Structures are given as C-alpha cells and as structure tokens.
C-alpha cells in the first residue's frame, strides 16, 4: 500500500469541498458563498498561470493583471458592440492575450532580475492608461457587461454554471501544469530557472522556451479575466492595476511557488483572510500588509510547499526507520 500523504489528502479535500460548495450555498441559502467561491476560483486560475512563469520559469512578472484585464475587456468590448457569442469572445481573448503576451514577452525577456520586474510592470501600466483614456469604453469608470457570454449550450449568466466552468478550468489548468512541468518543456523551463547559462551551453534556445511559457501564461490569465468579467459583470482599468498584479504574486507565494497545487491553496487562504479581516475592521489592510511582510520574511515555501516538505520529511523518517530495523 502506498504511504498516506498529507499534501494529497489536503488537495483532495479542497477539491471535494469546492465541488460541494454550490450545494451548501443552495441549502444554506447563502448566494454570497457561491459568488465568493467563483472569485476564489478566478484568482486561482490567474495564479496558476502566473505560477507557470514565476514558480517554474523564475520570471517575476509584476504585470499579470494586464491579461486579467484584457480578458475582461474581451467580453466587455464585444458585448458593448452586441456580440454575446462566448466562443467568439473566447477566440478574441485568446488571440489578443497571445499577441500581447508574445510581443511584450519578447521585449521583457531581454532583461532579467529587477529590470524584468519593472518592464512587465511598465507594460501593464501602459495598457492601464490606454484603457483609462478609451472614453468610448467607459474610460476610468469601466464598462458594465449587461449580457454575459453565451456559449450556445450554456451561458455564463447563471452563477452555478459560471462556478462550475471556473472550477473545471482550474482543475484542467492544474492537471495541465502537472503534465507540462514534468514533460521535456517543463524540464527545460525549470532548468532555465536554476541556471540559464548552463541550459544555453547545453544547446537549448532558452528564449524560445521562456517566451512560449510566458505567452501560454498570458493566454491562461486571459481566460481567468474572461470569467472575471462575467462574474462581476464589469470590465474596468482597475482590473489591470498594479495592486492586482501584486496580489497575484502574493497568492502564488503564499500557496507555494513552484508547486502545482499551491496557487489554488494560496487563493483560498488570501481571499478568506481578506474576508475575515474585513469583518474585523475597516482598516483591514493595516493588518494584511504586515502579515504579507511577515510571510515574505519567514514563510518562504508557502502553505502547500510546507505540506510537501512535511511529506518528504515523513518519507525520510520511514526510510530511516526501515534501515534501522534488523
């Protein structure tokens, strides 16, 4: 029998709870739980996409909210022009995010370290100001989305459908991340994180791998944005704000950077703590801020990372125990 792993049981329990959440919301008569759950899932999806570049590629993108915003505007702008077809909105979002991701990625990846952080931030700010000044699409105030995406078979107008679509996408993205990082592509990407010069010496065109990962991540984050637009019924420049990019980084690090399941755990932990602190005081950010500082100072592996470490430690203890027995 395979030894029991804490990290796996926690992951299974979380997925189970997420599957059952709408049932609870219905029975307890708390529609807020469903909306909140959808929010968690949208942020988890965005964080999964960021984790791909941040956790596995070592690229600290401080502008990922850009793609969240592009996804939301993908729904918003098309709906504004009377196009409610979800598939079309999806296609436009994917294409836009892929093009923007590839182009900005190409410039950004010429730099590393702090310059990369700053240039991704600058690109996000650039689009932020672009959408602020697009007065025909609401400018600073944003654009409300009256009719949600209609995918023919289903529409994202129903909260339950939206929730399960988001859940399905998150699970698919987690599975895809798992497959990807254990495939050749992911190995090369992780190699770049550890020592890019050595990967180059081995003959890999590292830029190509990193750019592909960055573009893929942009598109995935765009999908999260599409869901976010449908969830809030709104697309605004605020979705591209640098604070949101920062929040996504917090989620990834809090959950466990470079672990497959971490971003989902991080999204749950951060958003629930935010809600709890909000209930406590109006100035909840005065508590959250220092907590983030504390997390950066001490808890570097993230919640899920520590669970994995614990499992590894237990496995080691078991091996040591076996070795000692005659």
């Amino acid at each position, binding site marked *: 029998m395979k030894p029991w792993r804490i990290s796996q049981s926690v992951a299974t329990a979380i997925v189970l709870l997420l599957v059952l959440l709408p049932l609870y919301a219905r029975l307890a008569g708390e529609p807020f739980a469903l909306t909140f759950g959808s929010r968690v899932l949208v942020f988890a999806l965005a964080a999964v996409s960021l984790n791909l570049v941040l956790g596995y590629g070592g690229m600290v993108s401080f502008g990922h909210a850009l793609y969240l915003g592009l996804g939301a505007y993908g729904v918003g702008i098309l709906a504004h022009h009377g196009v409610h077809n979800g598939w079309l909105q999806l296609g436009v979002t994917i294409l836009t995010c892929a093009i923007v991701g590839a182009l900005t990625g190409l410039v950004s990846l010429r730099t590393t370290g*702090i310059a990369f952080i700053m240039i991704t931030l600058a690109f996000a700010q650039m689009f932020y100001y672009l959408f602020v000044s697009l007065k025909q699409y609401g400018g600073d105030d944003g654009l409300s989305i009256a009719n949600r995406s209609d995918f023919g078979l289903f529409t994202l107008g129903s909260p339950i459908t939206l929730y399960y679509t988001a859940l399905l996408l998150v699970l698919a993205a987690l599975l895809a991340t798992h497959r990807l990082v254990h495939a050749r592509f992911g190995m090369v990407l992780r190699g770049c994180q550890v020592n890019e010069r050595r990967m180059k010496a081995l003959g890999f065109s590292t830029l190509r791998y990193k750019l592909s990962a960055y573009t893929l991540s942009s598109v995935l984050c765009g999908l999260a944005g599409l869901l976010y637009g449908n969830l809030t019924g709104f697309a605004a420049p605020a979705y591209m704000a640098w604070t949101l990019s920062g929040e996504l980084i917090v989620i990834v*690090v809090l959950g466990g950077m470079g672990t497959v399941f971490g971003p989902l755990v991080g999204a749950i932990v951060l958003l629930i703590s935010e809600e709890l602190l909000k209930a406590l005081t109006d100035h909840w950010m005065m508590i959250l801020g220092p907590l983030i500082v504390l997390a950066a100072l001490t808890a570097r592996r993230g919640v899920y990372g520590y669970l994995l470490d614990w499992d590894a430690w237990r496995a080691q203890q078991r091996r040591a125990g076996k070795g000692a027995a005659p």
Partner: protein
Amino acid sequence: MTFSLFTIQMLNGLQLGVLLFMLSAGLTLVFGIMNFVNLAHGSLYMMGAYFAATAYAHSDSFLIAALVGVTGSAALGFAMERIVAARLYARDHLDQVLATFGLILFFNELARWIWGASPYYMNVPEALSGTINLLGISYSTYRFAIIVVGLLVALGCYLLINKTRIGMLIRAGSSNPTIVAAMGVNIKMLNAAIFALGAALAGVAGLMSGPILSVQSGMGEPILIMAMIVIVIGGIGSVRGAFYSALIVGLIDTAGRAFLPLLLREFLDRSTAQAAGPALASMLISIFMALVLALKPEGLFPLRNR
C-alpha cells in the same frame, strides 16, 4: 504654438524631472548598493508629504514643515531598514517585492486611518505664491523653487558621493560590500544611513510636491512607478544616470501630455485625436523604456566600473 507656451512646458518638464530625481536617487542607491528593490519608497514620499503638510498646517512655517517632513521620512526610512529591509538583502528580489508590497498596503491604509480618505491640502507658502519673470515669461515661483531645490539636491548628491569620506564608502560599497566590511567599516550602519538618506530625499520630494498636488493615500505609487522607469532607463545603481534619465523622462512625459494631442489633431479628426492623445502621452515613457531596454538592456548611463 507660441514660444512662451513651449518654454513653460519645458520648465514644467524640468520640474517633474527634478522631483523624479529626488525619488530615484534613493531608490537607485539602495538598489545599487544593497541590491534591494524598495517598492515602499513611494510610501516614504507619501509619509514625508503628510508630515510636512500636517506640520505646515499647525505651525504655518514652511521651514518647520520642511524640517518635520524630511527628518520624519528619514527616521521612517531608518526604521524600515532596521525592521524589514535589512533582513531581506541576501534574499531574492521576489521576497523583497512581496515584503515592500505589504508595506505599501500598510502605509496607504495608515494614512487613510490617520488623515482620512479625502485629500489633504497644503498651501503654497506666502513668499513663493506669486509668479516670477524669467526672460519675459512669467512662471510660478513655487514651481521654479522646486527646480532650484532639485538642482541643489542633485549638486549635494554629487558632492557627497564624489568628495566626502561617506561618499567614498558608498562608492566602495556599491562595487564590493564584502571587502568594505573586511576593511573594518560598519557596513550595517552604512546601509542604514544610505537607506535613511534615500528616505530623506523622498521626503524632500514629498515636501516640495505637497503644495502642487493633493496629499492623499496612494499618491506615492504612480510616481514610484515613474521613478522605477527612471532608474531602469538610467542604469540601475548609477546616481548620475538617474539624474539624466529623470530629466529626460520628466521632459518626455510633460511634452507628450502637452503637445501630443495638438500634434495628432494635425492628421487625425478631432474626436479621435482627443481620445488618443492622452493615451499615447501616458504610454510614452513606458514605450521609451521598452525601447531603451530593447536596445541597451543595461540602461543608458550604466555604472562605469562594473
């Protein structure tokens, strides 16, 4: 377009440039020497502005306001270095970004808690409230004072770094901190002093921009992002580079905002130009930075001795 309008816009650009320099000098020193990304530098600027505005409202003396604003933000910077930053010098940039992001959230909320959510106004001091005649063009005395203060600060930085013992240690620390420590210099105190100096400069910027901007929670971040762009363009760690590129960025931003909409109106119809002008203008410095990085990833004026 008239000559005087052009000159006034150039002076405005210069004024933004020196403000940006005061912020980016500290940022680039801290980054170049301690290898520390301080996103919370904008919070020091904001707190400096609040301290100065509060002191000015109570004392009615700009001198006291300056004293309170600058020493207040320097003390805050010193505390920030000792409590948070010093623990993160050896860590990677991600941890630093995360921690200082947390600090920003804290300070913005702190400011909202103490001074309220609505903007806090600081009056232009009586003596500087008029206009000044520069070669036949009348220009706001206060804005001119900002330019003068900024240039004096830049001169002071130059003298401090190139002509004094502290400056020698700073230069030595930026090329090899371990050896400096081995020579018997208390590198911890040196680091804290540099951090506090950067914070003091941010405080000067906050003090000077208090009367022309509204002092409010979150005012530090837009200008911090511009200062970050400045140091990336100028070459990280180089104060000289920060000075030149702050002026370039200030001029580009101001000129873009003032003239781009007019320029676009020449060959676009009015409504399109009106919509696209401000958009392009606010994107201009980001585009400029992307261009610089694409051509010279190490910045325009990198440190020579690296």
